[in-house]
């Protein structure tokens, strides 16, 4: 047992280097966000909060933030609604070709976003639609829905079908059962899906870059500011804040997802331990 629990030194070293490689660039963000110099370079020259003040005073930034919040909020609601429908259908109903259909919904997960962005742009222009926040929302719903389906699929699949039958048996209608049993049990999963979709949409750059008209989203705005070296430290500060927010949202989502599976499968865990008691009782 002891042998198998201790990882070889080489692997530990590899893991540490890997983590460093992943997160070191992000660690540079707070470093330069608080650095009292307009030039992004070492050595550090002192502590300051003035880059945050700059953010506070830039109105174009506020407009972009507002756009991003609207897009992310709408996207999270829409993709979660679509996710509920798809995940519920996949979990409960015998649909011919179900695996293929679900696979199709999941494809945007692996599709290069550049392709998605360009394709959508071509289609929208052909349809004669002008670019607006709505076109970005459409693109984001496309890439966020797979995440919602994956998160909600787990929530619905773990739900004991006899709970719904019990509700119907006690006189409740199908709609009432959905409202009184399925939604409350899936609520943590639904919240988790909304938070994840919000985070993805809020941070997404490529699709937004192709599909925004005059209203830039926050990532698009940041990209546009990178041409001006003087704005760079401000963007570092902004990036730092965005990383903090993403972490907070994703951690909350993960917490909710775990709570949801605990709540839903609590029955089974109880059953399992009962079975264990019975088995050890009989010996």
């Amino acid at each position, binding site marked *: 047992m002891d042998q198998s629990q201790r990882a070889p030194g080489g692997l530990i070293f590899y893991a540490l280097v890997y983590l460093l490689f992943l997160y070191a660039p992000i660690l540079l963000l707070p470093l330069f966000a608080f650095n009292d110099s307009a030039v992004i370079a070492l050595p550090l020259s002192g502590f300051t909060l003035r880059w945050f003040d700059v953010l506070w005073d830039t109105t174009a930034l506020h407009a972009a933030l507002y756009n991003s919040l609207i897009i992310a909020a709408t996207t999270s609601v829409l993709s979660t609604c679509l996710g509920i429908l798809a995940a519920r259908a996949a979990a409960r109903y015998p649909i011919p070709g179900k695996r293929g259909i679900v696979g199709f919904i999941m494809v945007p997960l692996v599709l290069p976003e550049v392709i998605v962005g360009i394709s959508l742009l071509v289609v929208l222009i052909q349809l004669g639609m002008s670019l607006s926040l709505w076109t970005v929302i459409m693109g984001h719903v496309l890439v966020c829905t797979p995440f919602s389906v994956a998160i909600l699929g787990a929530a619905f699949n773990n739900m*004991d079908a006899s709970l719904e*039958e*019990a509700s119907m048996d006690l*006189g*409740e209608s199908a709609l009432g059962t959905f409202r009184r049993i399925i939604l*409350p049990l899936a609520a943590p999963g639904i919240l988790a899906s909304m938070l994840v979709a919000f985070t993805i949409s809020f941070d997404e750059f490529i699709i937004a870059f192709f599909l925004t008209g005059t209203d830039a989203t926050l990532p698009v705005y940041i990209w546009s500011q990178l041409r001006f070296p003087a704005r760079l430290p401000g963007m570092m500060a902004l990036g730092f804040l965005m990383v903090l927010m993403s972490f907070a949202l994703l951690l909350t989502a993960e917490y909710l997802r775990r709570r949801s599976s605990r709540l839903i499968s609590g*029955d089974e865990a109880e*059953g399992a331990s*009962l079975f264990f008691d019975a088995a050890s009782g009989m010996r």
Partner: protein
Amino acid sequence: MSNQPIIQVRDVAKYYGDEPALAGVSLDIMAGEFFSLLGPSGCGKTTLLRMISGFDVPDRGSISIDGVDMAGVPPNRRPTNMVFQSYAIFPHLSVAQNVAYGLKRLRLGRVETKRRVEEALALVALEGYGGRQPHELSGGQRQRVALARALVMQPKVLLLDEPMSALDKKLREQMQTELRRLQRAVGITFVLVTHDQEEALLMSDRIAVMFNGSIAQLDSPEGMYRRPVSRQVASFIGMMNFLRADIASIDPSGATVNIEALGSALLPGVSVGKPGSATIGIRPEMLTMLYGDHATAERVFRGKIVDTEYYGDLTLYQVRIDDTATVVTVSMRNTAGRPILQAGDRTRIGWGAESLVLLDPLESAK
């Protein structure tokens, strides 16, 4: 129990592909009776229960409850309630909220709802548990909540889908007695699905034994045990020795049969069947081991014990009948003063013709 049928099942069939899950079942369940559907898994008993509750739809035939045809009536509009195998306690609601779940739609008002919930919880001996959360309950308590939640709706029929299968042996035996008492107290018709023959015998007024989507026998527990109609039913309910026999003649006084190793016997009152080969059954406890040289019985054979199984209160002996290859199982209670015999011991066994059962009398030459 009355003689009024509350559930009438007529020629109900269900096919999964070409396989019949139910092959044209008809039966009446009487108002107020404790009725069991007993059979091995896959015999169609659960399918039939789910059709009565409305969760499955028959491909053919009709089911009526209290005189009303249930075709097209969804589960939420049927006068039945179900106790699910997994109990299906709503995990996000308290015990009281679980029990009140179905009452909410009846709009009884807070006071009346509360009164009914407390009444139902008292009925299943869970007074004061209303505020508990499901995860704080034991398996037996969850089952009681499921019962209370169904009974509070005052259904005409309570359906129970293998309710004991998740409980350990001790608790199961306790709940069986309690469920029987509860059924007598509330007077509601109970329909129980089970694969446990002891459970069915202990609890039911009547039992339908099902094999392969058909009812093999419908009888009282005693009738089922004492007069099984087929070898299949006889071996499913309790233990039974099967002996080959020939029906020599049938006349108004009964059937005369020649039984392997036991000889000729008259089965009084048996008038079905026809001359030819048949199977005779005799329960292990109907064979009596005779202790002492003077003990006697209507008929006696001698044999040698080839094997024993000790169960504490009783012992099963495998006895080979002298001058034959036939081995029968004899069960004897281990009472005071009686030695427990060992393999190799010789013994005399007494039996009587009235404890013989003619099995599958309508199928000769099998």
